[in-house]
């Protein structure tokens, strides 16, 4: 699709940083405003190893030298890419991160390890970019709250069995909590802390 740059082993960032980041931002804003809707980030990008194009575009759009990033084990190959393209400091401690890149299939993912803000400044919380496999085929969960007319059922696949109960427990602490941007391929879906999550109990 696009040729690999011969100069950098890192892969290319935005072709047109100004307008591509504006287009991506509007789609991220739409995702965050209407939790559970799927948005296609169609910009051409060379993503680092083990990171989806959509997750890469989210980070290119929002991250810079002011926003420390934490990378889950296995995704640390993204560190040079983020330093080069965004100037972002990569940190070792999840609670110090403004953004985190994590794998939703991992049983190790612990939302409690991140910054959930404080009651005077709930905005000082981590935004997590969470890899999943696809936005269909997984366990259905029902969402309600701001941005949702009535309820919305979503079923992303490739998430650990403990993922949704953990998100539901985190969001029960509203207005504290973390905001999630799920990514798969070129698509994203946001689950902000304001979303109430109903996980069906397993029969038998």
């Amino acid at each position, binding site marked *: 699709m696009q040729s690999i740059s011969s100069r950098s082993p890192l892969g290319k960032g935005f072709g047109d940083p100004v307008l591509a980041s504006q287009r991506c931002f509007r789609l991220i*804003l739409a995702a*965050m405003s209407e939790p559970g809707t799927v948005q296609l980030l169609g910009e051409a990008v060379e993503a680092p190893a083990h990171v989806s194009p959509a997750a890469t575009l989210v980070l290119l759009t929002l991250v810079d030298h002011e926003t420390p990033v934490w990378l889950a084990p296995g995704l640390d190959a993204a560190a040079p890419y983020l330093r080069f393209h965004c100037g972002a400091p990569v940190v070792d401690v999840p609670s110090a991160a403004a953004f985190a890149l994590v794998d939703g299939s991992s049983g190790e993912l612990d939302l409690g390890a991140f910054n959930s803000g404080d009651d005077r*400044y709930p905005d000082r919380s981590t935004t997590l970019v969470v890899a999943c496999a696809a936005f269909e085929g997984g366990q259905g969960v029902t969402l309600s709250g701001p941005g949702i*007319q009535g309820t919305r059922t979503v079923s992303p696949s490739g998430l650990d069995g403990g993922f949704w109960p953990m998100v539901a427990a985190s969001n029960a602490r509203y207005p504290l909590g973390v905001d999630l941007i799920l990514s798969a391929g070129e698509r994203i879906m946001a689950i*902000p802390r304001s979303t109430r999550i109903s996980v069906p109990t397993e029969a038998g």
Partner: protein
Amino acid sequence: MQKTVTSPLPPRDEAYNFAYLDEATKRMVRRALLKAVAVPGYQVPFGSREMPLARGWGTGGIQVTAAVIGPDDTLKVIDQGADDTTNAVSIRRFFARVAGVATTEATADATIIQTRHRIPEAPLEAGQILVYQVPQPEPLRKLESSEAETRKMHAWGDYGPMYVRLYEDIARFGHVATTYSYPVLVNGRYVMSPSPIPKFDNPKMHMSAALQLFGAGREKRIYAIPPWTEVKSLDFEDHPFEVQKWDEPCALCDAADSYLDEVITDDLGGRMFVCSDTHYCEGRRDAGHRGRLLGTDAGRALTRNEE
């Protein structure tokens, strides 16, 4: 959405970065906007920048619009409900120049509507973004001058003093005297100032299909109401919230459902009531609705080139 663009697509002034703000500032505003959407009604601090328009001209709203707008957007700007005031025209020209975007006066054709003082009468649609210029974002400021204290009150949901103040009004006047910036409770959690819109417009914020973004430049705050969010005007069981009502319909378009401005028509105390939302009023007249003064001298003074 079908676009009937009122103005031709202007050339963008290449001397400026797209939409004027530099990319680092846009990212900072964009991050604040996402947090504002994630915590509806909570005021997110942001590093407000100087803008090439005088303060009081809505620099907070302009920065929000600049961080959001793209070349494919169609922008509408209103001030007191009108598209043709100096303030609205200046902001529209600014974005036509620095972003090369199409501008319109038609509410339904706009993808972004920047506003001071009003919410359009026509219901907003999914996908539209309403950007408010906010002079004073803190609904508790009249009760408590200290920012540290108001932040604590929001943190703990300590809104008792606000209800006491509203109830004191009822005790004195028989009703809540506040008619502008009437406070609302957003998503059952944060008390928020809707900026100086008339309380008539408050119900339009509740469960709106559009995304509502608020920017306060001087006070360096951004807040938001996502679509389909509960927005409740503060009230009491024995004194429920009520919007303003008028005894007569619009003198130009006969609307009985819109917010009316009082206009003095002569030196002898003559007056008429007309829609504050000029585009809404024009649309009704185009559709054949006629108010009692349409076609008279008094009516002609307000209807530009129409018969």
